[in-house]
C-alpha cells in the first residue's frame, strides 16, 4: 500500500510537470515603431501636453505646492528634472499599470482621473519620443 501511494504521487507530479511544460510559449507583444507612428503627430508642451498635465497631475494634493507628489508641475522648467532622470517616462508609460507606481495613481482621491485616456497616452508617448519639446 505504501508503494502504491508513492506511485500515485509520482504520477500526479509527472502529469503536473507535463501540463506545465505544454503551456510553455516564447511570445512577445507586437513591436511598434513609435517614431514612425509619431511622425505625423504634433506634440509639444505648450500646444497639447500642458492641459493634460494640468488636469491629471498638477492638482491639489498632488504635484503642486504643498502636495504629496515630488515636484511642482505648473510649468515646463519644473518638469525638466523628471524628464532627465527617467521617472516621468517610467511612471506614466512603463509602469502605468502598477497600482502604486503608475501615474496617475489609482489611489488618488481628489476626483482626478485614475488613468490617462488612450488618446492622451498616445500624445504623451509621441511627446516623449520626440524628446519632450517645449514648443
Amino acid at each position: 500500500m505504501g508503494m502504491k501511494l508513492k506511485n500515485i504521487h509520482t504520477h500526479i507530479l509527472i502529469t503536473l510537470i507535463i501540463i506545465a511544460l505544454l503551456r510553455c510559449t516564447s511570445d512577445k507583444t507586437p513591436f511598434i515603431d513609435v517614431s514612425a507612428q509619431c511622425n505625423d503627430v504634433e506634440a509639444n508642451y505648450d500646444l497639447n501636453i500642458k492641459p493634460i498635465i494640468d488636469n491629471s497631475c498638477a492638482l491639489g494634493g498632488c504635484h503642486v505646492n504643498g502636495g504629496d507628489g515630488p515636484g511642482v508641475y505648473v510649468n515646463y522648467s519644473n518638469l525638466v528634472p523628471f524628464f532627465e532622470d527617467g521617472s516621468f517616462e517610467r511612471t506614466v508609460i512603463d509602469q502605468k499599470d502598477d497600482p502604486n507606481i503608475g501615474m496617475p495613481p489609482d489611489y488618488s482621491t481628489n476626483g482626478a482621473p485614475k488613468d490617462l485616456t488612450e488618446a492622451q497616452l498616445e500624445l504623451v508617448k509621441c511627446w516623449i519620443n520626440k524628446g519632450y519639446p517645449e514648443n
Partner: protein
Amino acid sequence: MMLFGQDKEYIHDAFKDTRVINSHSVETLQKHQLDFRISHRFGDIAGDRGGWPNFYGLETAADVLIGVDYGVTDNFTVGLNRTKGVGTLSRLINTSLKHRIVRQVKDINPFSVTLVGEMSITTLPKSSSPNSLLFFDAFSHRFIYSVQILVATVIGDKFTIQLSPGLVHRNIVDALDENRLFNVGLQAKYQFNKGFALIFDGTAIFSDTRDSKEGFYPPIGIGFEFDTGGHVFQLNFTNARGLATTDYIPNTRSSWSDGEFRFGFTISRLFNL
C-alpha cells in the same frame, strides 16, 4: 558515543526556514507539516516615492503574500500562495514543487542540493488592447515559470552559504524583452545564537534587458531571522518589491543607492497536520 540509531551524522539545518528573504532555501518541510506563511513588503523608505510623506514606506504595500507550504514527504514540499505582484502580470497565484535531492552529511557529503520549480498564474482580467501584455490571446500567456537548483553548505556552527542558479521563463513579454532570464542567486546566513541569525539574499540576472541602463537592478536583501520553535520571523530590507520568484527576478526596478529599498517581514508558523 554513537547516537542511538544513527550511523551517519546529518548536519543541523542549513536554514531555519524554507525561504531566505525572497529566495527559496534548500530546506524542505517534514512529512505532514504545514507551514502557514504571510509576507509583506512596504513602500520605498527613501527616494522619490519614500520619505516622510508616506512615513518611510510604511503606509504603502508594495507586495503581500499569503499561502501555505506542505511536506508531502520529508524531502518533497508543495506550496501554494497568492501575491499581489509588482509586474504588469500581477495578482499571481503561485505554486511550487520542491524536492530535496541530497542532504549534507558530515564527512560524506559536503552539500545539500534541492530542486525547486514554480509556476505562477496571473488572474488579471484580459485587456482589450492587442499591444498589451494582458491581451492574453493564448491562455498560456498567463503563466510564468521558474526553475532553480539550490546548493548549500553549512560551515562550522554558524555559517551557511547557498548558490541558486535558475531560469525564469515568461510566456509573454514586451517586444524588446527576453522571455527567458538566466539568474544566479547567493544566499547566506550567520547564526548568532540559537534563535537569532543574520540573512542575506542577492540575485544576479544575466540579460542585457536587465541592466541598470534599462532601469533594472539586481534584487538584494539583508535581514534578521528569529526562530522561536514553531514560528520563524524574518525582518528584512530589500530593494525587490516583489515576493514571488517569478515576479521579483524580472521586475526589480528599484535601486538601493536611490534609497528605493524597503522594510519587509515574513511570518512562518508550523503545524502538524
